[in-house]
């Protein structure tokens, strides 16, 4: 009888755990809820017309700004990744000139605040009105629009950071791998291309996705050169209608939405690249 019951009810030995009431834990929980409730109360009663925020959320000017912010981010990242990869190769090069130049570039562009870079590129025509060789002269003032200044500033800054990420990725590949590539007769470049870079990608992609998310927010600095991005548009709108906070909230909501979406994508990419590890 007993033997039969143990074999038919294998769960007899399962333990059912209960949560015991704990006063301290409950009070701390209530405190958290109270803090959040108070903040919600402040927002609800604040001197702010939520209806205006809502109305401007999908305003075509705001949407254009969102578009520019995405465009700047993508362009700056594409150029930054390409430039950063070249810089990384330069930093690992045995050619002393390129090695020094690459390291110098990274040191310089990581040291300068992005906002200074943007202002310098925007005002570059004061410094260099014309560039060119002999008869081929370029009027810098007509070429360097706020758009170009913004892309250049963001991309050159990003390239310095990407250079370090790419270099760390390449260094993260086992030294024996490049030796194995050399042992079957590959040259340095062949081994980089076929063996080292494909393996470094796994290490490079996750931090690059993070860089893109930072870039989404960093583009807001182009407001100082009126680059038509989300914050520039927002600022223009509120300087006319004085709905300052309402419009800043519009911008905040869009940045939040973009970062959440791309953060989720970055997470998916990271999962995918970690799978083959």
């Amino acid at each position: 009888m007993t033997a039969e019951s143990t074999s038919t009810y294998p769960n007899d030995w399962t333990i059912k755990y209960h949560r015991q009431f704990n006063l301290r834990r409950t009070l701390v929980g209530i405190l958290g809820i109270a803090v959040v409730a108070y903040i919600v109360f402040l927002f609800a009663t604040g001197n702010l017309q939520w209806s205006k925020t809502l109305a401007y959320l999908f305003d075509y000017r705001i949407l254009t700004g969102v578009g520019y912010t995405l465009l700047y981010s993508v362009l700056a990242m594409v150029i930054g990744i390409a430039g950063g990869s070249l810089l990384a190769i330069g930093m690992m090069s045995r050619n002393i000139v390129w090695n020094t130049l690459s390291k110098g570039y990274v040191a310089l562009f990581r040291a300068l605040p992005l906002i200074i870079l943007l202002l310098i590129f925007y005002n570059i025509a004061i410094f260099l009105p014309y560039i060119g060789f002999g008869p081929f002269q370029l009027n810098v003032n007509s070429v360097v629009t706020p758009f170009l200044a913004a892309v250049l500033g963001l991309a050159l800054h990003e390239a310095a950071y990407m250079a370090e990420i790419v270099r760390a990725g390449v260094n993260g590949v086992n030294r024996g791998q490049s030796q194995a590539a050399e042992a079957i007769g590959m040259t340095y470049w062949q081994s980089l291309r076929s063996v080292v870079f494909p393996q470094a990608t796994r290490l490079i992609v996750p931090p690059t996705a993070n860089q893109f998310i930072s870039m989404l927010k960093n583009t807001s600095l182009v407001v100082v050169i009126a680059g038509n991005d989300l914050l520039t548009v927002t600022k223009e709108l509120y300087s006319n209608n004085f709905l300052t906070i309402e419009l800043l909230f519009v911008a905040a909501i869009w940045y939040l939405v973009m970062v959440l979406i791309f953060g989720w994508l970055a997470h998916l990419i990271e999962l995918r690249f970690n799978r083959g590890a």
Partner: protein
Amino acid sequence: MTDQMMKSHFLRVEHLDKWYDDFQVLSDVSIDIDQGEVICIIGPSGSGKSSLLRCVNNLEKIDGGRIYLEDELIGMAPYKDGFVRLDGPVAAGQRQKFGFVFQQFQLFPHMTVLENVTVGPIRVKGESRAAAEKRGRDLLDKVGLADRATSYPSGISGGQQQRVAIARALAMDPQVLLFDEPTSALDPELVGEVLKTIKDLAHAGYTMLVVTHQLEFAQKVADRVVFFDHGKIVESGPPETVLKSPQDPRTQAFISAIQTEV
């Protein structure tokens, strides 16, 4: 060496010196190897056996001496009153003549087994994919892994990985095969399959330098056994002599130490 009457050895290692900073790993190492000869190199770890192999195929720079394969100077070229170290395509071309099998296999993890074997012929030799794959499958068949062509290295055992690494080396049609402790990273039950593959290659007439701790394997396969200690050749000769009745006390101590391992 310029004397046409003197029959030159196939692979010549002459008075090799190699330093790591101020530590000398190889000092005045000379070995002559004839085509088809199998040399097993034994000796305590840290004695410079692996460094010797890495110097022979120019993975590492040598500080003194010369290496010749079929009278071609390896790794450097005369320049002014000295030499320049070869690099780029010329060095790569020389390395192709040596197949190297690493202790840690070093298969390319992002490629399938077949791709590991064909990447060299395709990228380095410029063979067509179809031809390289046909040859690659033949080689995988030879090492007993025809059915694992589409697996990735992470999906096969260590012994299988090392056999793929051997097939990868063979795919470049090397003139010399260098084995750097090919079974030291393997679980004991996987050692046999790799040693058997190497033995088959020895019988097929490949010229080989094998760094190993498997004395029984050396006994059966080697034409000559070289005992290495502190970067120097202590003793060399036929396996019966070096392994069964070693002359030098260091060789005697090493061989008895290995045999009383249990």
